[in-house]
């Protein structure tokens, strides 16, 4: 690994001087917008910082105590949990199916490109497209439902419907992208395994269960870790879909007040920066726990191939 022209004196510090120059802009960016804010975020969470006053006093862990006693926090957690469960469940199953089919049927870039379209456009655009498609009065989906004899559904207006609806919308947005990640994993499985299994008379289902699933596990684990983290952070779709047309984001009542939205509102509508920061730290801790748990469960680091 040593550079080709390393002299004994240069050895210790190596290319430090050059490295510092190359690293300087990115290092500034990292320190100013990631490292210091992360530390400052923890500090703000220990104060009663108010956005308007732009100052706060150190109050220890009071904010965290308040978080755990806050019914709206637990509500946000529940709402987000429901969203993540529906979204990740449907999205992963659909993406698996798409990836397997794609692997069998076509390598066409056009097909893969089309499935990526929903993922490429802004969340705000996605939310608006579906607000229109699912509109209670003139949305085309409700017209179809009526056609088969189902009463129109206020997808965004009913507490029981709003989170499953938004979860479904984001499944639509992410299924193609997730399928591409899984598809890439499928391509790493040696074709000879399937050929050998076919010679032994294995059926399609057996091959899927015995070869595809186990060998895909490391990739699937990685995909799940990434998508679950992303799913917990749902914000744009909720804010636009429930905040449109004079509506209040998070509604009806609190049925779609996900954790991101709740943090956002505490910070920028109620000016409670300290409390919002404590919520953010709590979310971060929660994500860490969920990720570590997933890694353990799915043994993400190991491969069955070797």
């Amino acid at each position: 690994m040593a550079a080709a022209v390393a002299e004994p004196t240069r050895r210790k510090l190596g290319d430090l001087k050059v490295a510092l120059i190359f690293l300087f802009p990115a290092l500034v960016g990292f320190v100013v917008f990631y490292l210091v804010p992360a530390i400052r975020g923890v500090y703000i969470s220990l104060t009663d910082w108010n956005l308007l006053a732009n100052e706060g006093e150190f109050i220890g862990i009071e904010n965290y105590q308040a978080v755990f006693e806050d019914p709206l926090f637990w509500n946000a957690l529940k709402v987000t949990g429901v969203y993540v469960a529906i979204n990740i469940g449907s999205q992963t199953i659909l993406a698996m199916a798409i990836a397997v089919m794609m692997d069998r049927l076509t390598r066409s870039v056009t097909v893969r490109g089309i499935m990526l379209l929903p993922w490429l456009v802004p969340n705000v655009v996605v939310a608006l497209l579906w607000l229109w498609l699912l509109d209670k009065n003139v949305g085309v989906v409700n017209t179809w439902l009526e056609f088969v004899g189902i009463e129109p559904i206020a997808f965004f207006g009913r507490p029981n419907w709003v989170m499953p609806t938004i979860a479904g919308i984001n499944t639509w947005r992410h299924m193609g992208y997730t399928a591409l990640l899984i598809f890439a994993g499928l391509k790493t499985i040696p074709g000879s395994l399937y050929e050998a299994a076919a010679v032994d008379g294995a059926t399609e289902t057996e091959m899927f269960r015995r070869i595809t699933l186990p060998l895909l596990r490391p990739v699937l684990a990685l995909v799940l870790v990434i998508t679950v983290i992303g799913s917990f952070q749902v914000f744009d779709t909720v804010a636009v879909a429930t905040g449109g047309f004079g509506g209040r984001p998070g509604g009806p009542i609190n049925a779609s007040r996900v954790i991101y939205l709740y943090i956002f509102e505490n910070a920028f509508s109620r000016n409670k920066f300290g409390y919002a920061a404590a919520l953010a730290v709590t979310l971060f801790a929660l994500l860490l726990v969920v990720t570590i748990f997933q890694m353990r469960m799915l043994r993400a680091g190991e491969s069955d191939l070797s």
Partner: protein
Amino acid sequence: MSVGHGTMAATKQRPRMGRVAAWGFMTLIILVSLFPFYWAIRTAFSTNSALFTSGQSLLPIQPTTINVEKVLGLEPITAGGATFDFTTVLTNSVVVATVITIGQVIFSAMAAYAFARLEWPGRDAVFLVFLAGLMIPPIFTLIPNFVLIRNLGWLNTLPGIIAPFFLMTPFAVFFLRQFFLGINRSLEEAALIDGAGHFRTFFRIILPISSGPMFTLAILTYITAWNEFLWPLVVGREREVHVFTVALSFFTSQQPGIAPDWAGLMSGTMIAALPILVLFALTARKVVDSIQFSGIK
């Protein structure tokens, strides 16, 4: 064997049924992916009032281009029909996404080179700290970053919207480092022995060799910057600095709950997505391939 493995067994036993069902499923997925876009375009070219009375024809109802013209600012807005200042919003979005892309790709490439090719104490530890940045949820740094931008007096300015993404993202550094590690060393070593410094090696050898991945990263960065909503919503609320996402969300929240301007909204929506769709159409293969690359590595 271009169709993939497993087909051998399938073709022997049930050649047709399975494949037909699979193609049926794929066609359905493709239709579901495309239909909302088609429906938005169809709506954008319909007369708004007719949408409420004339059913669900697959083609535009009472076709018109007036909605699109309104959004583009070619046609005056009548009372009640809120929209956004297209020229301003387009300029803001293009400036923000372009400046972020140029800065982020160049500076991240330099950092990636320092991590992949230079020898210095603590290199791997610093890289791990950078990687840890990938784990931080944006909302966590949102509040302190907002305070910083406000203290700098950059609220409601384009620099304020650009700043956090301009110098690096952990993903960009990671993506390029991964690629640089894979480049054959012999070329650069020959250059270094010939007396070329690291700067010349970087700019004359590494960058040209990596133009493919750099370009891919640039496209992904541009799309991400264009789509960003939360940060510009927080620091760019004034009309003069609205980007497309923020402008669209304000446009929506200003609409009446009863009989909103759907045709206008869909025009704005498709116009906001159009630059990204064109960019993607031109570069689809690279974007599609890169997702597999970043997904696996």
